């Protein structure tokens, strides 16, 4: 469906979170996500701090005792006591700070002269400390997209949270590898007026981040939140959009949802419904389903409510394959953990018979205009769930659209997550000093800001003499700054570009974890080559292995591989000599002479280099001779 966004009064703002590959923000651990088995495990209980509470009564105490336990998994060699909240934060990561300054300067935002690291209270367990460290860096910038100015409201440097591995009713298992990875939070004003524009702005922000050369890559390394509102609707925050290509569709779906809900409200008003119409009694229905075919209800505790005059409306579609009933179910799910509910517009189905529907209708005293909702589970939870349903229906009548935070789903729909949190509870991180920003440092950075894509194109074509194809690819690469640096050091531009582009793509096909390859690693590798520790032709082989095990120091990798290239170069000489001596044999027998010469080569090189490598070198040299 096409909408007139101007008429709708569409306003969209973006909040982009980009992970940085600079090492963690407050400790010296690497920014690496891992799938191997963790070897550190501990357990914590988080609690609201004393300042958060107003009263302590039986109910609050019960809530308190129902709190989830948090289990944390870590790795001895890549997470430390800082992530475990057993050590104060170290000084803020200088490289991450430099990178966020660059981003701020690139969009002309005003950097504060004194930065104050804050603690933002978060007690869902995703931060071991119970707070996220976050620092406001700059405000009031702007980016230009398609000639239109989009204001940048804030640029923040914060630490990423732990990732959820498993969720159980009584506990959540988190992994610490992600905790503390630097994140740039980049927030625009709601200046975006169409879904397509939202996507373009998101792309532009992504490109700004990547141009620093420090943006982390891979799944989940950039996450977008969208703030969407239309006139008469409400501001809704869509959280965690991971796929850039979905952004326009997400916005469209939210518009669709808000319009549908506003229509629903209109229909409710036309039916002369008022809020108190939904103060219906919650009635137990368990006895009706003792013999039921429906596995959700059979021999379960079941309660239901009547929803006056809502027959047909519960089934109203708000997003593709999502009905108003689904909306209600997702509220129930978020607030109680129950999987869902059954509503009259979808019945009979799921093993519930027509006869049973009739019985429910009669017990709840529903007329042909009324709808009903049923929930099964534990009595206390059901009551919470049904009250949440009543609350939600009343809100829909009252406002149509509720201002809230919703979870972005993979199919571009969204589901209720929580109400929009009032201003976050924040106080200064008492373990860190404010950071003084020197004007001199900023001026230095300004002189060396990453080039724009256009500037890169010009430089690569006219000065570096790259082919158009390579230049086009290179300007978008995360390694562009590294590339520029190497060329300025005298390396051949086409050689470096091919290595960084085709070379890495080739490696990825061979199974390399190319997202792990940082500029720092590349720099070390070039250094090793310069010092003759490895030869040029094995650089990519090293990268393949190193990317799978980036925690290993390069020198260890070199000795582990057993093909220290000093040996390799030495071996080449020896093999050359053998081949030279048997030239005639080779000319006669061609490649068959490999096996004949292998014995001699092994004799001379045994133990110094592995056999496979000898075989390779031998073939190469024999080939050379045959070409002559």
């Amino acid at each position, binding site marked *: 469906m096409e909408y007139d966004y101007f008429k709708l009064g569409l306003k969209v703002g973006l909040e982009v979170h980009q992970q940085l590959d600079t090492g963690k923000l407050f400790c010296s651990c690497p920014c690496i996500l891992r799938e191997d088995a963790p070897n550190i495990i*501990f357990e914590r209980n988080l609690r609201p701090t004393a*300042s958060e509470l107003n009263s*302590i009564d039986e109910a609050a105490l019960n809530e308190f005792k129902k709190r989830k336990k948090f289990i944390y998994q870590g790795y001895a060699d890549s997470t430390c006591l800082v992530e475990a909240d057993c050590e104060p934060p170290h000084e803020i990561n200088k490289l991450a700070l430099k990178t966020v300054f660059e981003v701020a300067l690139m969009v002309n935002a005003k950097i504060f002269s004194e930065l*104050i690291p804050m603690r*933002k209270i978060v*007690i869902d367990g995703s931060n071991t400390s119970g707070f996220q460290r976050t620092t406001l860096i700059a405000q009031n910038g702007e980016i230009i997209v398609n000639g239109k100015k989009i204001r940048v409201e804030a640029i923040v440097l914060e630490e990423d949270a732990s990732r959820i591995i498993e969720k159980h009713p009584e506990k959540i298992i988190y992994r610490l590898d992600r905790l503390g990875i630097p994140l740039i939070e980049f927030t625009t004003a709601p200046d975006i007026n169409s879904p397509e524009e939202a996507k373009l702005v998101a792309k532009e922000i992504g490109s700004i981040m990547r141009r620093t050369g420090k943006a982390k890559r891979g799944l989940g390394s950039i996450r977008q939140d969208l703030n969407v509102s239309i006139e008469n609707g409400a501001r809704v925050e869509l959280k965690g959009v991971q796929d850039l290509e979905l952004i326009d569709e997400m916005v469209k779906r939210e518009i669709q949802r808000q319009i549908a809900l506003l229509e629903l409200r209109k229909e409710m008003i036309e039916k002369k419904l008022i809020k108190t119409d939904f103060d219906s009694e919650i009635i137990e229905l368990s006895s009706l389903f003792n013999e039921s075919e429906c596995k959700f209800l059979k021999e379960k505790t079941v309660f239901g409510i009547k929803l006056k005059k809502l027959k047909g409306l519960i089934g109203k579609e708000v997003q593709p394959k999502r009905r108003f009933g689904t909306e209600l179910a997702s509220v129930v799910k978020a607030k109680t953990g129950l999987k869902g509910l059954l509503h009259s517009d979808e019945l009979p189905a799921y093993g519930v018979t027509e006869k049973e529907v009739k019985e429910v209708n009669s017990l709840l005293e529903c007329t042909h205009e009324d709808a009903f909702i049923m929930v099964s589970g534990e009595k206390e939870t059901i009551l919470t769930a049904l009250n949440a349903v009543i609350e939600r229906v009343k809100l829909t009548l009252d406002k149509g659209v509720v201002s809230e935070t919703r979870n972005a789903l993979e199919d571009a729909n969204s589901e209720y997550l929580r109400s929009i949190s009032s201003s976050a*509870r924040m106080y200064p991180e008492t373990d860190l000093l404010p950071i003084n920003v020197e004007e001199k440092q900023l001026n230095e950075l300004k002189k060396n800001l990453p080039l724009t894509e256009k500037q890169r194109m010009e430089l690569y074509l006219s000065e570096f003499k790259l082919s158009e194809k390579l230049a086009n690819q290179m300007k978008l690469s995360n390694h562009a700054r590294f590339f520029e640096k190497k060329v300025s050091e005298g390396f051949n531009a086409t050689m470096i570009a091919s290595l960084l582009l085709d070379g890495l793509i080739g490696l990825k096909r061979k199974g390399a974890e190319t997202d792990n390859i940082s500029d720092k690693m590349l720099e070390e590798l070039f250094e090793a080559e310069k010092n003759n520790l490895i030869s040029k032709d094995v650089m990519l082989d090293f990268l393949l292995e190193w990317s799978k095990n980036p925690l290993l120091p390069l020198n260890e990798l070199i000795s582990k591989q057993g093909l220290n290239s000093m040996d390799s170069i030495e071996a080449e000489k020896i093999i050359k000599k053998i081949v030279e001596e048997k030239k005639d044999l080779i000319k006669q027998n061609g490649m068959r002479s490999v096996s004949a010469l292998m014995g001699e080569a092994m004799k001379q090189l045994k133990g110094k280099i592995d056999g496979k490598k000898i075989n390779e070198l031998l073939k190469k040299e024999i080939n050379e001779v045959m070409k002559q």
Partner: protein
Amino acid sequence: MDADSFLKKHKLSSGSKVELISKGETFSGVLIPSLSPETVQLKLSSGYNAGFKLSEITSIKGFGEIKKEKTELKIIQKKGLPKILVLHTGGTIASKVDYSLGGVTASFAPEDLIALVPEITELAEIEAKQISNIMSEDMTFNYYKKISKELFEAMQKKYKGIIVAHGTDTLAYSSAAMSFAVENAGMPVLFVGSQRSPDRPSTDAAENLLNAVYFISKTDFAGIAICMHETISDGNAVILSGTKTRKMHTSRRDAFKPINDIPIARVNYHKNLIEYLKNNYSKKSNKKTELKNKFEEKIALMKLRPNLLPEEIDFYRKQKYKGLILEGTGMGHAPSNVKENLSNYEALKKLINSGTIVVMTSQCIYGRVYSEVYTNLRRLAEIGVIFAEDMLPETAFIKLSWCLGNNPKKAKEIFLQNIAGEFNERTPYEFKVE
């Protein structure tokens, strides 16, 4: 001009709502107490704080004051539960955050303690009293006097037990001091500290307090002990001897370890668990509780190390110190044997001859000192250095001070008696090195 006089000049102070112009941009927010003299800091409407250099502020205006967030915590304590007294001395465990201005302050009200661990209202009726507000590195013997007097007086009342909330740095010194000062304690007294401050949701203060309250409400143990985390996980706490425990890590939750000892018990409120690990822990007896709380001030603790100079030892003689604890190397050695170090030996001899009691402990921390194993050790014993068995250097320091304070004439004799489980005759295998 510094920030204070700058703000005074504009009739502003922390809590003032202001609008300022810096580098051509306008910002509004609430003034918060500034940490540096060259900047003013605002809490912006986003909740973030940011600082502005005085030299860059071209205009600043005030718009009144923010209303102080005042939340009165309503707590109804159940009657008929065992009464527990919480004595606050200060330290990390007393910190509380104030979000309106964003500072962390000290708080000692019982409500704040309960707010931290509401579960304790089901276990006990809590009374709280503040006796000092210092970080524990600032403890002096005067405070020991005060705390022990409070403990002694509370023991005459109908409490089930007492919790002493204390900074962790010198917590074990204080627990040792109380172990000597309050003889025959008639109820459990648990020292509780916090390695990670209570302004954070992950604080260990909560679990330490909860487990301490739980233990006190159920136990027949009587005496001075420490209750802290057993591991870096929440859940288990250990009850540790007041005289044989040491802070072994700067920041971990499980920093407190038994030294040449095992824990008295393991406690876990969540699992309703109390597991006694020592069979012969002290229980309430018919003996009268007595207060002996004088501590001699002229006492020192000295770490022996390579290249020690005799002037350092001479200093204690010239300043008329009554006691000196040596933290010797290994089994209790001092650099005093070869030609270059003979002057140290002479200095020690002179010190002892002048009447100062000199005690040898080990900087190995784990294990025992011996006066007879090597000739070098025997030479020290010969001149009258007392070897303090497997006593912790810190405990020896407190004990000697207490001996000299309460009975200077018999100090040496009393020092060698086992008063509060501060040394062991046997060294069982289970005394671990952690």
